[in-house]
């Protein structure tokens, strides 16, 4: 096209703003931008306020004043001036024999013989059976701080024999102790261990299955009607209410596969778990629950691997599998691990399906394998919040803090792993 053919004037009359109009126009556009900025800021602030309120509520419950009354004061249990905490095993047993009825002693002996119990265990029995601390009342953190005098006066007036003390419900003992029906002595060790067992097996089962299905669907499955139906169904499964997975787990893992999930076919014969309500059943149920989530995320991650990378591999005479294994998977790993983080978060907080599958509400023995009875933190929290006594709500608050911490540390592990992968891909390391 030569110069002469070009139109000399613009075909459209120029009505674009100029000079001071232009300045005003630009200023107006900036104003629009600022309005949106404030809207986005506002939504962030709302989120932060909600989170703060949640944390405030939990922390408020987890710490505060309590009025404690011991049936037997620990000071009276000193032997030859040695305080209770430093007594030997035998001395503790003798204290037990002194204060506890013969029938109870026989029952304790038949559960686990005294000779086989650790000193800590016996010490705890002394606390539970002899000292029997009873928390008469508890107050929340804010009240405890601002109305301390009134509370103290109230105690002196109503419970002259009780002592007022500040109690952090979340304390080392709370994490170390197993479940107990005495709020002052209850702990979450069994629940933490149960949660860890369940989550570990869930991830061990769900991660390879999810990644494998994602690889198949993205790399191998051809685009036909059957595969599209499968894909749609996986997407839908991610939105199915978790209780339905619980019902499925109850029918399949607890009932139909009972010999497998109770460990009978592996020769595990634990009289206390002679049914399928085990860690394994719970893990498999949760694995089903998070599987769609894992598959969808892994598929997204695999799809995001640039085609140029695959082509580079194929152009060197690589087979499909070599391309997937050496190039696609390492590049997709950060995305896959992000999905795994989401899956862990979802699984660790699930309550409903576990209640259906048969999480025990009261487990005082540590789970020691896939075939143990179990309880998990959310189940424990749920159970405590539904008790009428105030003290259990304090316990629930402390257990929520433990759950949040556990969740954070598990996720931190996955985030670290992900960062290592993405650094390697970006070539920083």
């Amino acid at each position, binding site marked *: 096209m030569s110069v002469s053919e070009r139109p000399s004037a613009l075909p459209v009359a120029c009505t674009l703003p100029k000079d001071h109009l232009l300045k005003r126009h630009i200023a107006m556009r900036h104003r629009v931008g600022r309005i949106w900025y404030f809207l986005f800021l506002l939504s962030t602030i709302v989120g932060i306020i909600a989170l703060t309120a949640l944390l405030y509520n939990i922390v408020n419950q987890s710490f505060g004043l309590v009025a404690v009354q011991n049936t037997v004061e620990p000071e009276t249990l000193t032997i030859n001036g040695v305080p209770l905490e430093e007594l030997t095993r035998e001395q503790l047993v003798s204290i037990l024999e002194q204060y506890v009825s013969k029938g109870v002693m026989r029952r304790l002996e038949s559960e686990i013989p005294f000779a086989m119990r650790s000193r800590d265990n016996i010490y705890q029995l002394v606390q539970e059976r002899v000292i029997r601390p009873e928390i008469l009342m508890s107050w929340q953190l804010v009240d405890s701080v601002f109305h301390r005098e009134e509370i103290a006066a109230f105690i002196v007036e109503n419970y002259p024999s009780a002592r007022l003390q500040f109690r952090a419900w979340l304390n080392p003992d709370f994490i170390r102790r197993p479940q107990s029906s005495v709020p002052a002595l209850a702990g979450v060790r069994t629940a933490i261990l149960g949660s860890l067992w369940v989550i570990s097996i869930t991830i061990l089962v769900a991660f390879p299955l999810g990644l494998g299905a994602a690889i198949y669907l993205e790399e191998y499955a051809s685009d036909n009607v059957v595969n599209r139906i499968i894909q749609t169904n996986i997407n839908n499964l991610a939105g199915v209410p978790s209780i339905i997975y619980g019902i499925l787990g109850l029918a399949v893992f607890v009932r139909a596969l009972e010999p497998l999930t109770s460990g009978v076919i592996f020769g595990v014969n634990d009289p206390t778990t002679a049914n399928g309500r085990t860690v394994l059943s719970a893990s498999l149920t949760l694995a089903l629950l998070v599987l769609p989530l894992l598959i969808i995320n892994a598929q997204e991650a695999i799809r995001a691997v640039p085609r140029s990378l695959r082509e580079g591999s194929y152009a060197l*005479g690589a087979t499909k599998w070599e391309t997937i294994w050496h190039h696609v998977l390492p590049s997709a790993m950060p995305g896959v691990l992000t999905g795994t983080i989401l899956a862990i978060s979802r699984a660790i907080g699930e309550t409903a399906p576990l209640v259906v599958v048969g999480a025990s509400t009261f487990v005082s023995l540590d789970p020691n394998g896939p075939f143990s009875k179990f309880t998990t933190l959310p189940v424990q929290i749920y159970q405590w919040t539904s008790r009428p006594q105030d003290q259990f709500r304090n316990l629930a608050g402390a257990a929520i803090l433990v759950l949040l911490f556990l969740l954070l540390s598990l996720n931190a592990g996955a985030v670290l792993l992900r960062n290592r992968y993405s650094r390697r891909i*970006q*070539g920083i390391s």
Partner: protein
Amino acid sequence: MTIFTDTMANSSLSLPIMEPRDADCVIEARGVNVYYGDFRAVKDITIKIQRRKITAIIGPSGCGKSTLLRTFNRMNDLIPGSCVEGEVFFEGCNIYDRDVDPVEVRRRIGMVFQKPNPFPKSIYENVAWGARINGFRGDMDALVEQSLRQAALWDEVKDHLRASALTLSGGQQQRLCIARAIAIQPEVILMDEPASALDPIATLKIEDLMRELVRDYTIIIVTHNMQEAARVSDYTAFLMMDKDRAGMLVEYGPTDQVFTTPRDKRTEDYITGRFG
């Protein structure tokens, strides 16, 4: 007419031989049509690629140059919905035959892409990987060094072979991709606009490199840049879109002849810059 040159002797062909071989012709396309779904991208192309020469494929955007190039090592197989009609003979056998494994085709016909696409691994690993999966036994360090030297990259990277390939500049990355391609000693190297993403200095380096490599390899290069085609190639093929937007071969011949005395009016218009 079967003549065993040294290249043929060391290429233990597992591809079934269908046609008598032409000593000077490595790749021959006969009546190639490529479809993406219903769209015909390349129409009825017949071309013979000469051994140990650089053949440039030029033409306006969207005329199917890259598509044609990618039919030579079955790279189009990877694009869903694509379909190739016609025959492409490599050393006398049709690579689109049913029992030909595309993996073997790509092992013997390497490719360098428009955008440098090194693997997100170390420089060393980028070169070594292809050789390793293809069953290379021997001194890997020596192979890596030799490939990087051939690609004129050795001096720049020899002190940090373990660094990520992504820390290299664009031109270095492209030369790394060339090193990676020649490490598996292919018989033909396809280059899809290898210098289009590079600055003039890096472009010159790549062009010098091609002149070096053509002593041992057959090179087919797609380029937008006619000066580049004129500078570097021995043969030039000019592709153009037909009225139905399918690319077709307008003219093919020695570069000197195509650029100085084109037989076709459209070629002349294109190389003199009258359109496109």
